[in-house]
Structures are given as C-alpha cells and as structure tokens.
C-alpha cells in the first residue's frame, strides 16, 4: 500500500501551476498516468523515486514514511528500492549489457540473478555488447532487466515505449506485463498512448494541470467522454484512434482514422464531425450497423 499526498509548484510552458495529488496505490497494482506533456506526470514518478522533492505533503510506502515535509523526512533515492525506467534508458555506456545488470545488483544479492534475468528477457546474444550498439527496443529491454536486477519493490516507467516502432512496442508491452506479474510489482507508468494504457493498466489517472481530473479503469475513463456528448451509446466494441483527415462526401463526412497501426476510413454524421479536427483522439465504437465517433479528452 502506497499513500501519496503531495503538492509541488511546477513551471511549464503554460505558466505556473501546482501539482496537487492525493492517491492510494494497492500492492501489485498497475497504474497508468495519462495526460498532456507538462501536466506533472513525470514529476510524480520522480517524487516517488526520490529524484525530486515535493514542496509539502507526505509519501508513505507500506507504513514507512519516505517523505514528510512536516517531520522533515526525505528518504534518499538509494534506500527506496524503486526501479525507474528513464525515457532515454540511461544505460551506462562504459559497461557491457551484462556489466550493466551486474552493477545494479544489491550488495549480497545472488550473482545468478543476472544470468536469470538475461535468460528471462532473451538478452543472451547481447550480453557482451555495449549499449551504443543496440537498437531502441533492445536498450529498452536491457533497461527493464537492469531495473529488475536491483530487486525493486515498485516499478516506475516514464513513457517506456514512446521511442519504439509499433511492432517492437507491442512485443515489449507484453514483456513488461509478464515481468510485472512475475514479480508482483506495483507499477506506475506514464503514457500518452491509449491502446497501451488499455492493455496494461488496471487503473488510469488522467492528470491535468497537476490534478487528477479523472480516474478509474481504462474502460471507465475513456468512456467518460461519451456522457458529455449526450448520446447514450452502448458500443459493442471500441477502439482508440486518432483523426488523420476529414472530408465531406455529400451529406456525410468521411473520416480517416489511425487505429493502432491501421488506417481506416469511416462515415461520420455532420453532428459528429463538427466536434472533430485533425489530430483529435477519438473512440471508434461499432454498433450493429453504423460506427460512432466520440471525441476523447486528452
């Protein structure tokens, strides 16, 4: 159980705002932090890892106080056992892949753990290579393996898949999910990708301007957009997508969407289309006959 109640002043392109978050996280839960860049998602991860200090509030993990502004407690990063995966992976360029993992071992840890992780993550062929010679997907796997080598109690993932192509991304999402289950790790992931959030997380926090704007299961959160559109839709199945193009075709509109890595063209009514523009995130739901398009708050 992790209890968080923190606030911190942040400076972004849109000006100054206060990160103000209060949440509890259950052991083993997979939570996604969703929202625009600069909303404070990464800052929350960094505060948890001890890389940044909140202005006030507290963070308690399984009864142990990691941070408490009133009591003046700020547990050092080194003692938090939080596995952090950086956006740039932060592999140590001077060490081989195996050495990167070995360096991460805690004092007194079994050395075989490195070999096990190399096996588990399929890094056998790469273990003597230097990080500079790896592809993005391979680096990402090494970064995950290295974080796990340090026997973390929680996993903090900062846009772990953003720099990868679609196929690699899907494969690594599976990998992360497998590892997370395998080690029963409480996980927080920052992500901009709805499909990723849907696939991996049990709970989504939508963060806007430093506050939790919405939370719930992925289905609840991303469907919440529908209620505002006054239509009572009951989608048979739904996809998250992005609007690439909108064309008029007589009385209806033809909307080109990117869903996953597929491009689809669907018909939208003028009512639906008037709220849409290129680049919008939408939910595409298919009922028995006609598709329904609903804009999603991002």
């Amino acid at each position, binding site marked *: 159980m992790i209890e968080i109640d923190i606030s911190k002043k942040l400076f972004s392109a849109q000006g100054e705002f206060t990160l103000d978050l209060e949440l509890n996280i259950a052991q083993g839960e997979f939570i996604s932090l969703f929202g625009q860049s600069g909303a404070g998602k990464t800052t929350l991860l960094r505060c948890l*890892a*001890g*890389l940044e200090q909140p202005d006030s509030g507290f963070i308690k993990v399984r009864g142990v106080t990691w941070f408490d502004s009133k009591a003046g407690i700020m547990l*050092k*990063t*080194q*003692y*938090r*056992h*939080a*596995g*952090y995966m*950086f*956006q*740039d992976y*932060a*592999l*140590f*360029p*001077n060490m081989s892949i195996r050495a990167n993992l070995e*360096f*991460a071992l*805690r004092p007194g840890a079994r050395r075989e753990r490195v070999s096990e992780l190399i096996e588990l993550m399929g890094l056998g062929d790469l273990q003597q290579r230097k990080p*500079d010679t790896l592809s993005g997907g391979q680096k990402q796997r090494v970064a995950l393996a*290295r*974080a796990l*080598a*340090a026997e973390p109690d929680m996993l903090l993932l900062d846009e772990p898949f953003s720099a990868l192509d679609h196929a690699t991304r899907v494969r690594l999402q599976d990998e992360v999910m497998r590892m997370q289950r395998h080690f029963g790790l409480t996980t927080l992931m920052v992500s901009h990708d709805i499909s990723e959030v849907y696939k991996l997380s049990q709970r989504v926090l939508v963060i806007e301007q430093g506050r939790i704007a919405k939370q719930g299961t992925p289905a609840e959160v991303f469907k919440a957009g529908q209620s505002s559109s006054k239509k009572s839709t009951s989608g048979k199945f739904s996809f998250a997508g992005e609007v690439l193009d909108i064309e008029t075709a007589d009385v209806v509109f033809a909307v080109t969407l990117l869903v996953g890595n597929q491009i689809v063209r669907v018909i939208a009514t003028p009512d639906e289309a008037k709220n849409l523009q290129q680049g919008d995130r939408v939910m595409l739901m298919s009922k028995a006959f006609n598709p329904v398009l609903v804009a999603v708050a991002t």
Partner: protein
Amino acid sequence: MGYDLQPLFLTFKLAAVTTLILCLIGIPFAYWMAYTKVRIKPVLETLVSMPLVLPPSVLGFYLLLAFSPQSAFGHFVETYIGLKLAFSFAGLVVASVVFSFPFLVHPVQSGFQALPRSLTEAACTLGKSRWQTFVHVLLPNIKPSLLAGVVLSFAHTIGEFGVVMMIGGNLPGETKVAAIAIYDEVESLNYAAANFYALVLFSVCFIILLTVYLLNRKMLMKVA
C-alpha cells in the same frame, strides 16, 4: 653530447608532480563545479580561468609575495609544514598547479556536464552511493575529457616560463627548468645548447599532443 640534462629532467619532474596533484584536486573540483548550484559559481569560474588571460608575470608576482616568509601564507607554510616556497621546487609545483588549473578543470568539467543527468539518477535508483557512481559510472564515461585535461596540463606545465622566472629564479637542480635554461643559454650566446633544449621540448610536446588527437579520433570512431 656534453649538454646538461638536469633542466630537462627537472621539467618533466615538475610536469609529472603538478599533473598528479592537479588530478587529485582538479577532478573532484571539476565534478563539484559541474553540478553545484552555489551563487558564486560565476565568480569561481572566472577565478579558475584567470591564468588563461593574465600575463604570467602578474600571477608570478602575487605568488612571490604570498610565498615570501614575511607574508602570512609563506610564514604559515614554512613554520607548520616546513616547506620553503620561494625559489624552491615546492614553490614551483604550487605555482604550476595554480597556473595549469584551468587546463585540467575546463575539459573535465565540460565532460561531466555533457553526461546525461539520467546516468547519475539511474545509478541512484539502483542504490549506488555518490562515490560508487562517480568511480564506476561518471569517470569512465568522460575518458576523452580526462585524457585531454591531463595531457594539456602536463604539456602546459612543460611550456611554463613567466611564472617560473618570477618565483623560481634560476637555481640549477632546483628551479632551473628547460624553458629557463634555453633563455639562459641564449643570453650567453650558447645557441647549440639552447637549440638542444628547444628541440627536445618541441618534439616532446608534439608527440604528446599528436597522441591525444590520435587517441581521441580512435575513441570517436569506436563510438560511431
């Protein structure tokens, strides 16, 4: 060849000792400078860089005053450490350290600053202390900068003249380094000896710098 080799020997001894001391002081200082947020950082940076622009005689003059047993500093060092700094090898070492300081600190500091912050942070999240991170992660990843800093300060100490002239004088075996010896020989119109010292210094500096450039090229090629 009846040339006196002592000035050359003394030159390289001075450069070696200076470089060693510079590494011990300069590398931790460069590390601190790279990450510190103290307000007086611009002032410190300016002070470190001063030897680059000041005439060596200015520095030599003030060091001479400081080293004199009549001054507080000189008196302190002589009474409590037992070192006579003015017109001695020890004094030359202290002066060379000050004079070559920027040549070590600048490349090493920019080396540290060029490293992504996430490397340090990653080591922290893996439970590593600052010292472990410094030794195993930071230092090995700024090797080209370290090499440049060490070699430049070594070569620069070899090439030092003005400061040595001011505070060392011309004592054979103590402060008469090769650069001074050349001046000395030219004054007594002994061009052959001057040429000998000059040629040795020229060759040594050329070879040292060439090695650095070749090594750096090799390291860059390896990365690419």
